[in-house]
């Protein structure tokens, strides 16, 4: 067996070489491994219906109604509790989902392929802000938008993507970092760059002009559209380090609104969990911390990959959204170099003299130094159906890392 330093060097080499490329869009049931009609995928580590938080429950209700498996909230709740529906983490199906992260069989998904190592990852298309499924909203307005995304957005974009050919997401993310994004809670540059790539090919589309115009307006009206591309790209990169024997590098950080879970390259498929934390953030008018659900979503895959909170120095403007001062953004990134193994060869931070972003979280460093990964995140209302109430900063619970360290010692030492 390789020692952890050798194993980690191999993991970092694979992470550095990974090339996530957007290949297309298709229906989840056709392309996501193991996807089936009675399966609901969700963010974070495994969880049963009884333990789900409000926003995740709301998203499950909406998902079952969208899928045509239930007509009302009550029917959906009864079905979810009946045992006939399986709930499994997106991460166990090579995918990621922002916030509640709920995906069902007929939802369209982006297909991202790591061209270096051949692994494929998936993510649904971003619905925008306000009342949306990922924050647990399930009203008719939410379901109607999801149906439009399935019937119009996905096929129109899929056609344009096919005409364009594969889009290298690593390159787009690298450019977005130069333009003030960190591609977790700031995706304005990434979304703009994506539009620049896709717009000429939308013009060549065969659907009605009115539909293509609405697709462009929808993407342009949603600064977070690129999040659902940065996430599967980050997943594709980190998946390339799974499951390297002996490695102590974190390949997954994810939350289901009740628990925070991590997975480690050398501890195949095992989750190490602790309670999801309360987010310290800025709230939209009329809301306060009393309304907030604990930390939720797979979007911490960006931080796992050295983006998001780890690259906040590239996105000082984000502090107006998540709180703090611009100098804090620089300091968060500087601190993350202490618990990571390498600096990205692709993702560079202008304000730090183009230093590569801190990459490859090492559970040994986290435990030894007592420094937790820095995550920035949206805040969901604790009741289903309300939506986003703010954004802020959060850390994982230390016990995730200590439990992983204990399992590592039991396995290898």
């Amino acid at each position, binding site marked *: 067996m390789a*020692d952890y330093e050798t194993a980690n060097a191999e993991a970092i080499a694979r992470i550095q070489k990974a090339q996530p490329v957007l290949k297309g869009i298709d229906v989840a049931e056709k392309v996501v491994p193991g996807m089936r009609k009675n399966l609901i995928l969700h963010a974070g580590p495994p969880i049963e219906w009884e333990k789900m938080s409000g926003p995740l429950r709301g998203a499950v209700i909406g998902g079952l109604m969208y899928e045509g498996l239930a007509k009302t909230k009550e029917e959906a709740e009864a079905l979810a509790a009946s045992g006939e529906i399986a709930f499994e983490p997106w991460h166990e199906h090579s995918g990621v989902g922002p916030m509640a992260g709920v995906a069902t069989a007929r939802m369209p998904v982006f297909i991202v392929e790591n061209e270096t190592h051949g692994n494929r990852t998936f993510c649904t298309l971003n619905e925008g802000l306000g009342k949306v499924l990922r924050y647990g909203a399930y009203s008719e307005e939410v379901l109607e938008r999801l149906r439009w995304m399935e019937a119009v957005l996905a096929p129109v974009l899929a056609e344009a993507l096919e005409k364009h050919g594969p889009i290298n997401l690593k390159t787009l993310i690298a450019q977005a970092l130069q333009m003030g994004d960190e591609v977790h809670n700031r995706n304005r540059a990434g979304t703009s760059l994506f539009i620049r790539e896709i717009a000429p090919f939308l013009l060549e589309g065969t659907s009605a002009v009115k539909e293509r115009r609405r697709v462009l307006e929808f993407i342009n009206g949603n600064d977070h559209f690129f999040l659902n591309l940065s996430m599967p790209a980050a997943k594709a990169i980190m998946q390339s380090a799974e499951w390297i024997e002996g490695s102590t590098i974190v390949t997954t950080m994810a939350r289901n609104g009740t628990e925070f879970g991590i997975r480690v390259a050398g501890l195949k498929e095992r989750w190490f969990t602790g309670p999801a934390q309360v987010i310290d953030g800025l709230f939209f008018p009329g809301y306060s911390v009393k309304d907030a659900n604990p930390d939720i979503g797979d979007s911490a895959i960006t931080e796992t990959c050295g983006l998001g909170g780890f690259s906040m120095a590239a996105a000082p403007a984000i502090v107006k959204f998540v709180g703090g001062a611009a100098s804090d953004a620089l300091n968060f990134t500087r601190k993350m170099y202490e618990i990571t193994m390498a600096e990205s060869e692709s993702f560079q931070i202008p304000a730090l003299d183009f230093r590569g972003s801190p990459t490859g979280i090492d559970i040994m460093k986290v435990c*030894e130094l007592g420094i937790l990964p820095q995550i920035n995140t949206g805040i969901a209302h604790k009741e289903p159906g309300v939506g986003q109430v703010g954004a802020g900063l959060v850390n994982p619970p230390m016990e995730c890392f*200590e439990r992983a*360290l204990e399992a590592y*010692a039991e396995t290898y*030492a």
Partner: protein
Amino acid sequence: MSGMREIFGKEVVVINVGLDLFAEELEKATVPVQRVAWRPPAQGKKKVQDLLARIKKKKGKE
């Protein structure tokens, strides 16, 4: 602190390692202090320290 200057013959700068309390008291007395952020390994948790030592020892044997 003027007495300190007399003893050392020059300005004294204090390096404070770890707890901020000492640094804060000196700063109140206008003594220049350089703070070093230091924490005990593994937040002082013996079990975690032992796990880390075990893993590092195993590597040392290979």
